[in-house]
């Protein structure tokens, strides 16, 4: 039951049009197959290009091919957290009912992306740096991001009253946003073993075109795959909530 729908700021009224569970299920049911198929196709092309078509790096050799999954998972780890924070903002300010569920479902998928980023970075670091792990600013800030995800997953499920869990999780998610610029600029603010970004919004990429296109395909494929998995989990969560509500109503009638 949403009790705060009359007290929302004016900007939230439009958002609530999309909060209807039936409308969400219909819309997401239509886009989910496209998300899943395009994610599979794009990632497949990107991985094939990265493994078999892109050249080996003149210094790193074939270990450079790990970037085709490491960089997209790193990008996803940060952007998923931004998605979690936006869902948390919608939850706190507009009490958007789907935002609560979105925050619950984004957390584990974002944590998995962060774990993949850390693990593949470690698998790249061992042959390149000679160490599985160093307490470097970039690596440490991404590890903090992973712990933030784990904290959010635990906190949002820690209360008997789900609303209190949503609220506590949302506050943690919003506080944790401060870590995102630290991750982004850690390679500039501190002396770091980790190389700076090869692709920026302001300048030309410092990566060869033959390596750039598989990376772009993988990044887009991973992003769409993330969207597909979160949408599927969110659809499941909406249906589970409806099941609970129906069973509760029947129990009260009996």
């Amino acid at each position, binding site marked *: 039951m949403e009790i705060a729908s009359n007290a929302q700021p004016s900007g939230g009224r439009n958002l609530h049009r999309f909060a209807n569970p*039936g409308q969400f*299920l*219909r819309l997401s*049911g239509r886009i989910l197959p496209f998300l*899943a198929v395009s994610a599979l196709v794009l990632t497949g092309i990107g*991985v094939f290009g990265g*493994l078999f078509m892109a050249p080996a790096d003149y210094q790193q*050799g*074939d*270990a450079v*091919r*790990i970037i085709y*999954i*490491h960089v997209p*998972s790193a990008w996803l780890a940060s952007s998923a957290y931004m998605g979690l924070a936006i869902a948390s903002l919608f939850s706190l300010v507009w009490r958007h009912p789907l935002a609560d569920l979105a925050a619950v479902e984004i957390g*584990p*998928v974002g944590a*998995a992306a962060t*774990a*993949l980023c850390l*693990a*593949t970075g470690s*698998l*790249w670091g*061992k*042959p390149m740096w000679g160490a599985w792990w160093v307490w470097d600013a970039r690596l440490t800030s991404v590890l903090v991001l992973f712990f933030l995800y784990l904290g959010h997953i635990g906190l949002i499920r820690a209360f008997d009253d789900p609303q209190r869990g949503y609220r506590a999780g949302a506050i943690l998610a919003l506080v944790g946003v401060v870590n995102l610029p630290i991750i982004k600029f850690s390679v500039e603010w501190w002396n770091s073993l980790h190389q700076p970004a090869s692709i920026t919004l302001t300048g030309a990429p410092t990566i060869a075109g033959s390596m750039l296109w598989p990376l772009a395909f993988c990044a887009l494929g991973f992003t769409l*795959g993330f969207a*597909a*998995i979160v949408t*599927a*989990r969110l*659809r*499941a969560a909406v*249906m*589970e909530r*409806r*099941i609970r509500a*129906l*069973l509760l109503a029947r129990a009260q009638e009996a």
Partner: protein
Amino acid sequence: MTHLPYLLAAYGLALVLTGWMAIGAWRRMGAARRKLMAIDPRAERS
């Protein structure tokens, strides 16, 4: 190719992790849809 074990481990891990998340999400969605349709046949429309 001395880096092959690292490549295999990285890509294998990516495959296992994403496959586990994706299959888990689809199975959960399917189970919820079946249960909802058993309780409320009108839900079939969505």
